[in-house]
């Protein structure tokens, strides 16, 4: 018993580092009132340490704390993505002028981010429904506060309240679903649930429980029809938090969904090929319909947006739809496509949010119409923005194309032709709103009075850090694929 706990603590080092950072930020904030960015630096250091601790866990596949969480290559991959996105978000936050009026409280902001990171770490690695719920809540509650962090802005406060209300309802539905599953199978451990499932026949109650769990997690991913909070919250939140929600939290929730479905609801038949359990419930069809609806609504709504944050919010919803295609397939191929997509999506979406933030800092506008002529005033940032958006569209030779190719490929190979067709049509629709930004930047002349705008070197360095993977991975992605292949193994599969 004690031995197991000690062993588990040894596996829990990355999370412990985050907890330590959480405490350290509070203490240092009390000690050094004036050094305002200190929280950011502490968290940055903690994340880098955390990255090293994660690297030390390479290849481990084991469970900890009585199968509450697992440490496996699959979780490690997503933790790595979370760390990378966390590092970028902190770098962005240090430059975000929206946060400047709240300098005296800025350590709270970083503290909450570290809490959210911890929650997401647990989301990707938990294998017990109760633990999943706790992780889910930890992420949610931190993000409720973060969304409303710029509290003097009415929109921010409003979106925070909206988020809390919708979030609590969906958490309630999730826990209700969990309790039904517990009632049906007598266990909260997803491995045991999986074992119980394979012996079970489908019942309406069971379908309902499943639907409730999908609703709860779907809320976090922002898939249609559980997405209605997302545009308002994304628009109202500080842009760095929007990026965090649209990238990290979306990826973490999808990971949780994959692990839950993969372990509890799939199995192998006698010949060793992949089957769904219990028979009779077409949850893949349910997810496919949700994915299709998400792609359609996300893309069509993004067409009409003028606010860049809102447009990127809808575009994130649309991308959640593409990623869901891989979840629908659920075979190794589908999941590796999801992982590849998540990897590429991280850089291109963070990049797009970053340039949007820079523009909002410099030009104090979030309106796409106000971007006219910016391509001539700040060529490098505008070209980078174009590359990120082109990558989000999925045009070669960018990372986004490879990501889309793999997701589409997995779906084609699994026979989901109608779903791929919808995704194809929606990709064409998406071209229209992504290219609109590039059009405004380059196809119009700036005003005579407006001079060139320069960004400092640190900004350009961050931009290059984001730009390089988007371009390089579009042409050479062997290492990423190999990384994913090594990371596909889930504990207990």
């Amino acid at each position, binding site marked *: 018993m004690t031995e197991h706990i000690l062993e588990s603590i040894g596996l829990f080092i990355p999370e412990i580092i985050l907890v330590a950072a959480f405490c350290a930020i509070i203490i240092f904030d009390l000690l050094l009132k004036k050094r305002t960015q200190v929280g950011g630096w502490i968290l940055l250091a903690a994340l880098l340490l955390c990255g090293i601790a994660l690297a030390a866990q390479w290849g481990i596949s084991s469970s900890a704390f009585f199968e509450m969480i697992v440490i496996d290559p699959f979780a490690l991959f997503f933790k790595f993505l979370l760390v990378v996105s966390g590092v970028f978000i902190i770098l962005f936050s240090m430059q975000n002028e929206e946060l400047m009026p709240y300098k005296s409280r800025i350590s709270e902001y970083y503290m909450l981010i570290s809490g959210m990171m911890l929650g997401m770490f647990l989301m990707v690695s938990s294998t017990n429904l109760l633990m999943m719920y706790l992780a889910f809540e930890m992420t949610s509650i931190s993000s409720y506060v973060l969304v409303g962090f710029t509290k003097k802005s009415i929109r921010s406060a409003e979106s925070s309240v909206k988020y809390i209300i919708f979030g609590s309802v969906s958490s309630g539905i999730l826990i209700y679903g969990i309790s039904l599953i517990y009632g049906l199978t007598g266990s909260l451990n997803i491995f045991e649930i999986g074992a119980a499932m394979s012996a079970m026949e489908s019942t309406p109650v069971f379908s309902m429980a499943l639907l409730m769990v999908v609703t709860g997690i779907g809320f976090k991913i922002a898939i249609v029809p559980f997405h209605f909070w997302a545009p308002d919250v994304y628009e109202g939140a500080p842009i760095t938090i929007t990026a965090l929600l649209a990238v990290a939290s979306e990826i973490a929730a999808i990971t949780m969904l994959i692990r839950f479905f993969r372990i509890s609801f799939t199995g192998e038949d006698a010949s060793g090929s992949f089957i769904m359990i219990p028979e009779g419930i077409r949850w893949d069809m349910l997810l496919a319909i949700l994915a299709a609806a998400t792609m359609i609504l996300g893309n069509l709504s993004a067409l009409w947006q003028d606010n860049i944050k809102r447009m990127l919010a809808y575009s994130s919803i649309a991308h959640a739809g593409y990623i869901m295609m891989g979840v629908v397939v659920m075979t190794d*191929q589908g999941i590796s496509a999801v992982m590849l997509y998540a990897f590429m999506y991280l850089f291109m979406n963070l990049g797009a949010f970053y340039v949007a933030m820079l523009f909002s800092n410099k030009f104090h506008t979030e309106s796409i119409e106000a971007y006219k002529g910016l391509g001539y005033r700040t060529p490098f940032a505008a070209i980078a923005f174009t590359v990120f958006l082109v990558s989000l569209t999925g045009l070669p*030779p960018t990372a986004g194309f490879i990501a889309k190719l793999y997701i589409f*490929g997995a779906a084609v190979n699994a026979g989901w032709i109608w779903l791929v*067709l919808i995704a194809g049509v929606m990709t064409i629709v998406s*071209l229209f709103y992504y290219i609109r930004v590039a059009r405004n930047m380059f196809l119009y002349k700036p005003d005579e009075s407006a001079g060139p705008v320069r960004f400092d070197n640190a900004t350009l360095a961050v931009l290059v850090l984001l730009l390089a993977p988007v371009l390089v991975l579009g042409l*050479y992605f*062997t290492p990423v694929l*190999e990384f994913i*292949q090594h990371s596909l193994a889930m504990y207990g599969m």
Partner: protein
Amino acid sequence: MELQFLGIGILTWILFLPVAGMILILLIPGERIQAIRITATAITGLQVILAAVIFRHFDRGIEGINSIEGFQFVEQFSWITVEAVPWFGRIEIFYFLGIDGLSVLMIMLTALIGLIGAISSWTITKQVKGYFALYMLLITGMMGVFLALDFFLFFIFWEVMLLPMYFLIGIWGGPRREYAAIKFFLYTFVGGILMMLVMLALYFSVAVPDPVTGELVHTFNLLHMMNPAYYVEGSLLAGVDTTWRYVAWMALFINFAIKIPLFPFHTWLPDAHVEAPTPISVILAGVLLKLGTYGLLRISFPIFPDGTMYFMIFMAVLGMISIIYGAFCALAQDDFKKLIAYSSISHMGIVVLGIAALNTQGMVGGVLQMFNHGIITAVLFLMVGVVYDRTGKRGLNDFGGLANQMPKYTGIAMVGMFAALGLPGLNGFVSELFSFLGAFEAYRWIAIVSVFGIIITAGYILWTLQRVFLGKTPEHLTNLKDLTTRELVCFIPLVILIILLGVYPSPAIELMNTSLSYLVQVVTVPAY
């Protein structure tokens, strides 16, 4: 057959020279306009020299099409390799270039038109650096499509062209450039997505045993996709004459038809042409449209011979409609550029009619027509560019009596226009004749109806000649300068080719005859 410079194959050189040029141009400070122009011209000039070397060393007797031995100057390197795992199999994508009789003429055309376009781009004065950087990228994209023998590579180059083209039309174009640019982008992107889906379906349907281990490896290799033996039993596109194969053929066809552009997918072309700056119109009509018919011949025909045979009459009918419809539309235009745009639709219809005949005459006629039309429309668009630069006008009714003022210009324009009309002795005649001969053999009535297109063509060309070059000179056109030396440099090689290939077309026909006869055989005599 291998040719290398500095240890790098000639095809890689000709393909990536423009990218090197783009980087060079980006390094030159934006104010040094002249240096940028000279760099661009020098790079495209080098490409022409390389193309000449290829022409000199190309073996006319090798078939190509579906076997790697048939290709020349082949370069094949593993590009993306991921070792096998049980659930995915090995992933392999090749950097695989090669040319055969089908592509060699297109390489020549791209290099030549690329140079001519670069020289005529000297008139561009706005954002010169950005312009030439995008221009270079565009050339690489086009060259890559003609060289690639791996579907993945082909697709990447196919899509790489879109963005430069969008900005080239969108930034440097005419008053409605924004609309024209996005229309072009959307149309071709629709096709691109369709092609991507077919590419994926083919990828998962085709698997080649590894020569050493014997494990099955999925592949993007176009040549393997042409071999029915490599299709995995029970996969989506396995078998012959299945519904899925027809669907895949149709999806590919729509993609290529948008690019050609074939009726009813042609509506983007007149807009794009009218708004694009002159050199971009030249590239667009001279090379870009040929990618469509080239794609049909390189991908649709040999990979889906069953679909091709099934839909051949459908293709021929669309070709016929394009010929007649394009010609009638041209007759109705009074904008010079729009007229040439519609005449392009009509002439590309002849290409489709020729290749849809699926016999050697038709095929040779079609491919030769691709080359000839590239040369002829380049002359025609440059010709419009000359008067547009001088007067800012393009309306056919704005001109008159130019023959008196600009004799050199008129002489060259006459050659171009008569070649477009199909006058014997000029190159257009040869290829049109072959195309119609082939078509007549295959579908008599379609060919007979199509030939009427020529009469309409004669109508609009002669009418244009009369309105622009003859008659009274309007007041505002009294002191126009004749061609400058730079303009003459653009025109002269093209005019020489028009006359040379009109009188003596054998050098061009010899290049492709073997490959195209073999392609006909591949399509019409099934391997199964």
